[in-house]
């Protein structure tokens, strides 16, 4: 049996990233009914902008702010320009349109900065501490801490603030929410902004912890979606747990030779098993409304 302790540390950090992204997806889905496949691509462009700025001699903190700003702008831009035009369409159409946005953004980033090896290292990765003889860089701690804080913080925001209340109302029934005087366009834009900020932050973390590669960051949306599925596209704590579990499973499989190469299938398997388990009593789900 190989020593799996270092892989647990890696897995928790990886899982935190999945969880953070999953929460970014769920918050947006609840408020706007859009499952945003472009979430990863938005973060990827942010991270590449940060790399480009640092490469051009801009101080690091400014570059980080630039990353988050660009990601947020890309998210809000889609949410304000494209999403309203598809507001009365079904869930599949809304999701599929974001797949188009993914291609647009990924095509752009590959064309802008061809996929060669780049790296972006946060200063917190140079320092750390030891637990059970395993070195833990601060960036990993930040990732996990951020995942926990965001889960609690966003849950509190949705439950305690007026905008949060509006978001929950829109999640239940956007038309009625609109009729009751909620500015659904404005609340929707806030959700797109929150999601954009999260994607920018996760983009930076991924660039440091995994790698800075547009394609890789773009498709990290896949485990994030798996985490969101485990949260039934609704529950933030369940999304957090799902993300952490997938990250751990993927990472702990690494030292075992027989399954190591296949660990990337973990998100799909986790989501599939969850659906099978969840649907064990369901014969069929029939929906008459769009939500």
């Amino acid at each position, binding site marked *: 049996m190989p020593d799996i302790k270092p892989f647990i540390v890696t897995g928790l950090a990886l899982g935190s990233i999945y969880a953070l992204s999953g929460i970014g997806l769920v918050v947006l889905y609840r408020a706007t009914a859009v499952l945003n496949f472009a979430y990863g691509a938005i973060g990827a462009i942010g991270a590449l902008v940060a790399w480009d700025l640092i490469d051009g001699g801009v101080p690091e903190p400014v570059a980080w702010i630039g990353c988050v700003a660009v990601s947020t702008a890309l998210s809000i831009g889609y949410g304000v320009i494209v999403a309203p035009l598809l507001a009365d369409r079904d869930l599949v159409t809304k999701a599929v349109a974001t797949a188009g946005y993914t291609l647009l953004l990924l095509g752009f980033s590959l064309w802008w900065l061809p996929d060669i090896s780049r790296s972006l290292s946060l200063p917190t990765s140079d320092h750390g501490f030891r637990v059970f003889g395993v070195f833990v860089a601060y960036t990993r701690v930040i990732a996990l801490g951020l995942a926990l804080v965001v889960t609690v913080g966003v849950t509190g925001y949705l439950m305690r603030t007026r905008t949060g209340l509006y978001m929950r109302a829109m999640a239940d029934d956007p038309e009625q929410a609109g009729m009751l005087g909620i500015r659904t366009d404005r609340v929707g834009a806030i959700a797109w902004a929150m999601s954009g900020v999260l994607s920018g932050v996760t983009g930076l973390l991924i660039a440091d912890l995994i790698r800075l590669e547009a394609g890789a960051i773009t498709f990290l949306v896949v485990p994030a979606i798996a985490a969101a599925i485990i949260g039934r596209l609704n529950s933030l704590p369940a999304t957090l747990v799902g993300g952490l579990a997938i990250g751990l499973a993927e990472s702990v499989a690494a030292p075992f030779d027989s399954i190591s190469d296949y660990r990337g299938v973990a*998100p799909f398997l986790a989501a599939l098993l969850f659906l099978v388990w969840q649907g064990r009593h369901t014969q069929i789900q029939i929906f008459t409304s769009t939500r």
Partner: protein
Amino acid sequence: MTATTQSDSVVPIIAHGRAPARVAVAQVGLFLLLVLAVAWWVPNQFGAKWVSTWTTTLVFAMAAAGIGFLYSRLGLASLAQVALVGVGGWVALRLEFGTGLPFFVIVLLSATITAGIGALLSLPALRLRGLYLTVMTLMMAAGFDEIFNATGFPNGGSGFLGYQASGELQRMNRPSIAESDAAYFRLVLVVAVVMFAFVWLHERTKPGRAWHLIAQSEGAAYSSGIDVVMYKTWAFVLAAFLSGVAGAMFAGQLGQLGPSSFETIDSLILFALVLVGGAYHWTGWLIGAVLFKAFPAFLDDRGLSGDIATMIAGAAAIVNLIAAPRGIVGEVMKASAGLRGRRRRGARDDTGVEE
């Protein structure tokens, strides 16, 4: 996506008072003539590189057909059809080196196995609402991407995976009737026509009617005794079967396959391009495949990056979803129907008949 799923082209035929059956015979005859013309013309007209490009285009037209009919008939978006082409290719190569069965048996077997795998993996999602299938197929595409990178494609090695990093690499044999590139192009053309006809046959018979009702309202279909999950699974199995055939034909074309042909993004791009071409008509599926394989080759000939094609695909898909859900083909049909309508109205005005 309720009443609009009916074909626009039906209306003028009835208005002219012609018997639809005779029109269909004429249409089929014209279509087959066109196929013959393409079969003769393309290998004579183009060089080796472009004959190969057009062959690949036809291969992926079969996968595009799966995407198109799932989306237009059932509102299901499958983002894994290129990955399933990879599965079909993998299985075909494995069977070729493992069993040495005749080519067409391998094609059928690998398509059937691909359909089985696709159905097994999508069944849990098919019982839920449509968004779950979209999501699960995206994850399926990413999962197969990982698996292909881990296993490689069989090339004559030993063991279950049949992959060897070095040694004598084997190639898949083409059938004796289609050894040359030109003949293989014609073979793929025939297979693609048969597959399109297979889809058409489904749509004209019982499953087509069931799918139509399910698309109108799952609840209504369920209460009128249609096994909704079974028919949805059937549709997905058919789409996966098409991808499986495409994969086996692709393996025959190239002899060997690699993971880089079946990346997650390729499944997304082909899906987007079927929307752009027009998911609601078979010509749109064909246009989708042309945009998927021939257009990047065209750009490449002019020294332009394929990433530009990716960007265009994404942007065009969004525009289509918003403004023209029926794609290029739908717009052309609308324009020609509008012209015809105006001409008819003009003729009636001459005879003094009021609208």
